[in-house]
């Protein structure tokens, strides 16, 4: 037998072998009958040196235990053994939950859209432009308010800072660049506040 292997076995018996080597040797020890017999004799000679009275060195205890373990089921790691199987209702519940969340999301989105039914928007505050068609009693507020049709597409008003930047950029950019769509729009827009206000001051800032 390999002398290095035997040396490792001796050190492992004494708990003096590094863990990584123990792992490898333990695997071999559990399968190699000759190595296991040597391991058993190491235990016997240790007991003989200690002169343990009353202990039978020829005892076949290990053989008896090994024979009894044949009928025992092989162990599995606790985590594997305790892992609960997937129940039939778990995927059903997961799908139901997902469907419920999706339905609620759709309902919420519909209540937020302008064309949503009145019933869905009944709890929203009445717009200021609403027309009162109901009869107001002295003690009750308006009971029904018809909102006006949705207004035309909202006007996109660029922020003052962006407008100032675009104007200043148009003033100092080349002729070709000045005719890009946005610059042309901003500079040609009559009455645009951004185009009329403080072009010089912004220009100074950009120039710096």
């Amino acid at each position: 037998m390999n002398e290095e292997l035997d040396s490792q076995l001796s050190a492992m018996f004494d708990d003096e072998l590094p863990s990584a080597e123990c792992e490898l040797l333990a695997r071999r020890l559990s399968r190699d009958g000759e190595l296991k017999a040597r391991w058993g004799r190491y235990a016997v000679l240790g007991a003989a040196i200690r002169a343990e009275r009353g202990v039978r060195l020829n005892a076949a205890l290990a053989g008896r235990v090994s024979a009894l373990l044949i009928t025992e089921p092989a162990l599995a790691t606790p985590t594997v053994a305790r892992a609960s199987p997937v129940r039939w209702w778990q995927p059903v519940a997961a799908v139901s939950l997902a469907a419920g969340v999706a339905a609620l999301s759709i309902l919420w989105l519909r209540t937020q859209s302008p064309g949503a039914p009145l019933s869905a928007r009944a709890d929203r505050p009445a717009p200021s432009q609403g027309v009162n068609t109901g009869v107001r009693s002295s003690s009750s507020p308006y009971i029904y308010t018809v909102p006006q049709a949705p207004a035309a597409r909202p006007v996109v008003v660029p922020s003052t800072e962006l407008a100032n930047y675009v104007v200043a950029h148009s003033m100092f950019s080349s002729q070709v660049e000045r005719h890009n769509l946005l610059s042309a729009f901003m500079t040609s827009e009559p009455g645009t506040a951004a185009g009329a206000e403080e072009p010089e001051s912004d220009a100074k800032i950009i120039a710096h």
Partner: protein
Amino acid sequence: MSADASDLSLVRRVQRGDKGAFDALVLKYQHKLVKLVMRYVRNPAEAEDIAQEAFIKAYRALPQFRGDSAFYTWLYRIAINTAKNALVSRDRSPIDYDLDRHQGDESYDMQSRMKDSETPEGLVLTDEIRSTVNAAIDALPEDLRTAIVLRELEGLSYEEIAGAMDCPVGTVRSRIFRAREAIDQRLREVFEGGLGRAEEIG
């Protein structure tokens, strides 16, 4: 290197379903466990039965062993509980049996040991093994003998032995291995045919 790494590597294998690794643990600790149980029951055969039961209990409980304590400490507790339960179930009280009382006691002769239900063949073989091991140790060179005795009799670690013998740890490991090999050579003769009826030890 961690203490108990050897046992832990075997334990992990058993936990993964490798029964062969448990054999190695039984081989290593069977004598120590029987000696422990002998503090509760005087009969060696009964002590072996209890030790056997303790090993089976340990095997079944091994999935719960997490390595918080040394394996032998854990096994030791199982064996003590098994021995106490055996005594209770037999409606007996523990025998105050101090093993050390017999150290060097000449009166602890063959006749008194026969009362312990030991078979003559078993006694002869055990004596044969002991005398073989002692003869092998006497034949060892001084450095090998010192190393193996410090390890097996005094229970010193390799580092402690290296300090005592003023040599590197690697040398200690080599000396202990060579001492074991020399003794094992003689032991094999006993087990494999010295008495013609040696029981299997593994």
